[in-house]
């Protein structure tokens, strides 16, 4: 059997979460990882470390600690200022070999997925992808991951009892973050980082940062599919009237009608709206996984046999071009009445 570079008998009983930041704030998924990490740490009574990689990151320490990590582990170096998979993997690998933690969780973001994928091979260990739930088996100190496959139709339980560290990625939006509260400690540790320019093979030619769009926590989500023929203005108007936001299936994203950050589903965002309204969407598993937590699902589709209706509370067989304008009209009239 393939052996990991260190085995369970050598591990330090600790849980790490790899955090990412955008400017002066940790990203949403980082807070979600801290919350889940806290829960797992409490299940086994192990410490939780929030790991920050970059250059000059101290300003983030207080956010990590107020979100209930037992300590911050800082990996700082001038060559870590910009993300490169080579340098980040190398820095994290060295810290892992020095401290041999049992469990490390990553956000399933493009960059963290790449780091985790390289690390798993370098450490000869397993990596559970896109977990929708995680727990610790207390007696064995083993992480158990629920992962989905086949576009979300199947859930598999995975574990790696004989390999360390136990690595897992978590999709943004799957876990709920905690409010900041009084820190449990003020412990900040620095890992030794030795890096040489020669490890970095990627050259960044151009980088344009976009506006952060985040639909994961919108209370009402109005989603458009191929059936709305790109008419997202109508959906935006409806979403605004309902105090919500707009999402989309993959085809309109691919066709350039709307930003990729608004794609809902398996390869998009997993959302937790109270109400989801699906317009012109057929109901592929790949999409449905992104809204299936909603308390109420309403769907409008011209095909009475569209699979989306199986996943819906309220089903409207009809043309979105007729139903949505009528709905917008009714909501506006209602506003006039209530404001009168």
């Amino acid at each position, binding site marked *: 059997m393939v052996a990991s570079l260190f085995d369970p008998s050598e591990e330090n009983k600790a849980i790490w979460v790899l955090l990412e930041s955008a400017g002066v704030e940790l990203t949403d998924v980082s807070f979600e990882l801290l919350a889940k990490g806290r829960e797992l740490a409490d299940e086994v009574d192990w410490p939780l470390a929030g790991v920050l990689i970059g250059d000059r990151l101290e300003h983030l320490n207080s956010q990590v600690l107020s979100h209930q990590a037992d300590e911050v582990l800082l990996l700082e170096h001038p060559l870590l200022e910009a993300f490169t*998979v080579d340098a980040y993997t190398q820095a994290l690998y060295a810290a892992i070999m020095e401290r041999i933690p049992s469990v490390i969780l990553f956000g399933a973001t493009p960059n963290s997925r790449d780091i985790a994928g390289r690390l798993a091979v370098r450490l000869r260990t397993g990596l559970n*992808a896109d977990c929708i739930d995680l727990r610790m088996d207390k007696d064995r100190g083993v992480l158990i991951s629920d992962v989905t496959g086949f576009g979300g139709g199947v859930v598999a*339980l995975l574990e790696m009892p004989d390999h360390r560290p136990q690595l897992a990625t978590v999709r943004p939006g799957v876990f709920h973050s905690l409010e900041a509260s009084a820190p449990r400690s003020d412990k900040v540790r620095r890992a030794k980082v030795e890096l040489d320019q020669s490890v970095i093979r990627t050259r960044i030619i151009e980088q*344009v940062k976009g506006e952060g769009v985040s639909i994961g926590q919108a209370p009402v989500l109005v989603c458009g599919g191929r059936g709305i023929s790109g008419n997202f203005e109508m959906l935006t108007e409806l979403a605004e009237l309902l105090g919500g936001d707009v999402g989309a299936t993959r085809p309109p994203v691919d066709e350039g009608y709307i930003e990729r950050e608004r794609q809902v589903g398996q*390869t998009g965002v997993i959302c937790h709206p109270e109400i989801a309204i699906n317009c012109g969407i057929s109901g592929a598993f790949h999409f449905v996984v992104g809204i299936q937590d909603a308390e109420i699902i309403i769907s409008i589709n011209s095909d009475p046999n569209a699979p989306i209706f199986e996943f819906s509370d309220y089903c409207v067989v009809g043309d979105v071009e007729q*139903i949505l304008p009528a709905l917008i009209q009714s909501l506006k009239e209602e506003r006039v009445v209530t404001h009168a």
Partner: protein
Amino acid sequence: MPDLHMAVCMKVVPKPEEIRVDPETRTLLREGARSEINPPDMNALEMALSIKDEAGGRISLISMGPPFVEEYLRVGLAMGADDAYLLTDRAFAGADTLATTYTLAQCLHKIGDVEVVLLGEESSDGATGQVPPGLAEWMDYPLITLLRSLEIDKEQNVLRGRRNVDGGYEILEVPLPAVISVATAANEPRFMDFERKGWAFEDTQVTMWDAQDLSAESQFIGIPGSPTIVTGLEQAASQERKNIFLDGGASEIADQLVKILRSN
């Protein structure tokens, strides 16, 4: 300068909607499920083909899977690829991404001169997206994932690609040889070339390699090579829904919807 040699890794997957879990045995019911080439891998192949159209070069297809995958590789040959390798052996079965990437890496070592390895962004079944970074690591090659476009500069021996992240984009450059993954729908895959079909489906050979051909160490392949153990399998629990169909004309439906929206 020798021709640029590109490899495209392709996985054949069951159509996701056609897979069920047997509630008794907790195993996958693949029976009757039709298979297809993982859609993003078609985008990877198209990206390689368009490089070949412009600058020439050679494309090898690589897949690890059961013998029936051969027919699907022939589709790729008919689209314009030059060679195909099917890594097939019972001993490869049960591979997680560690074992899968080792096996693909052994194939690249054996082929020898591949400079650009293209993969899809993720598969539609396992969907881990871990094979591209894992393969890059076994090979000790640089990696760029989620590319939407690709440029190869043979003079300077680099490739440059654009990826969209965080609502913006970046253009990255790495030296060859390199591993890249291609974003789903980055391009429109072409159809099979009618003139190549006869050659692809009848005349040419798909090279079949087993563990021994790859000099694969048994500890790194299949189940022994996989740290991940599957301890349970179930159909995803879907919440019970009311499935109430609303009747009436557009404005009546709108009024019902307003009531529903306001009572929640």
